[in-house]
């Protein structure tokens, strides 16, 4: 977990997918409320670039989404998290995880044979 979305870059977001995430939810401070002026605005631009990359390589752009919340909006955070989880469950496992599962199953079958 990162304490500030201003630190997020595209490589970090893509790494999450490489590490097996089916979806990545980025939650930044409310726009206009960034302690570092525009860290969350830059984060949104980076999320959008990753969105475009995921679309081009058929991983599915809807697997990444940015939300803006203040630190005092706990219930809203839970609401957004549930909403995003629902969205990812609907999409199912990412093609990376599907490919990994297929490879693992094929290897197990070969070993069993």
């Amino acid at each position, binding site marked *: 977990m990162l304490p500030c979305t201003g630190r997020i*870059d*595209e*490589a970090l977001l*893509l*790494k999450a*997918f*490489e590490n097996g995430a089916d979806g990545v939810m980025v939650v930044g401070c409310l726009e206009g409320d960034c302690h570092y002026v525009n860290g969350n605005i830059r984060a949104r631009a980076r999320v959008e670039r990753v969105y475009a*990359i995921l679309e*081009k*390589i*058929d*991983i599915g752009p809807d697997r990444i989404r940015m939300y803006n919340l203040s630190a005092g909006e706990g219930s809203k955070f839970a609401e957004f998290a549930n909403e995003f989880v629902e969205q990812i469950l609907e999409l199912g496992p*990412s*093609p*990376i995880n*599907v*490919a*990994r599962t*297929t490879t693992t199953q094929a290897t197990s079958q070969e070993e069993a044979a």
Partner: protein
Amino acid sequence: MITGTPKPIEEILEMVEPYDNIIVAGCHGCVTVCRVGGEKEVQVLASTLRLAREAGGRKIEIKEVSLERQCDPEYVELMRPYVEDYQAVLSIACGAGIQFLAEKFTVTPLLPGINTGFLGVTERQGEWAERCQGCGDCVLHLTGGICPVTRCAKSLFHGPCGGSVRGICEIDKDVKCGWQLIVDRLKALDQMDNYGKLKPYKGWDAARHGGPRRILREDMI
């Protein structure tokens, strides 16, 4: 700096399709400054390729490297110990860097990950613009520091031409007339006499019309 733009990922995926392990090589020079070929871009491109290939059912192994400069032999040589362990090098340096790697590593295929652009400046974060075409015969002292070869769409030496309307070039409403800029600047500098000093014709023999150019500094050899 030398600028560039990323090649579409579809084109890069097609290029790397025959290979199972490659090096993605960035450069800490110009392409880092214009955010197209530095260490971060290496990470993003390598991740993107790994994800795309694995999702397609055929993994690719990638070594991520970023050289200080791909256009200088001392840095390029740092890749020599391991370059032949990989089937290809995908370089996101400028065309000069990519070619230099190809010259040095003769048995390894070199693939370009960017389209090299122009010699330009950073006008603001995320926006670069052309300023020099390396014509080899600079006249900026006569033109108020504004290059007629680059800033005039026709590279005229005695503009503005009839395509200049209210300071805008006929090629695009967002392109300022280079010669209007020059005249305005010369007036501001009280150097309009320079306008008449321009050579009757431009000698292009120092430009690339004679083929690839070379600079030889005997005092440094």
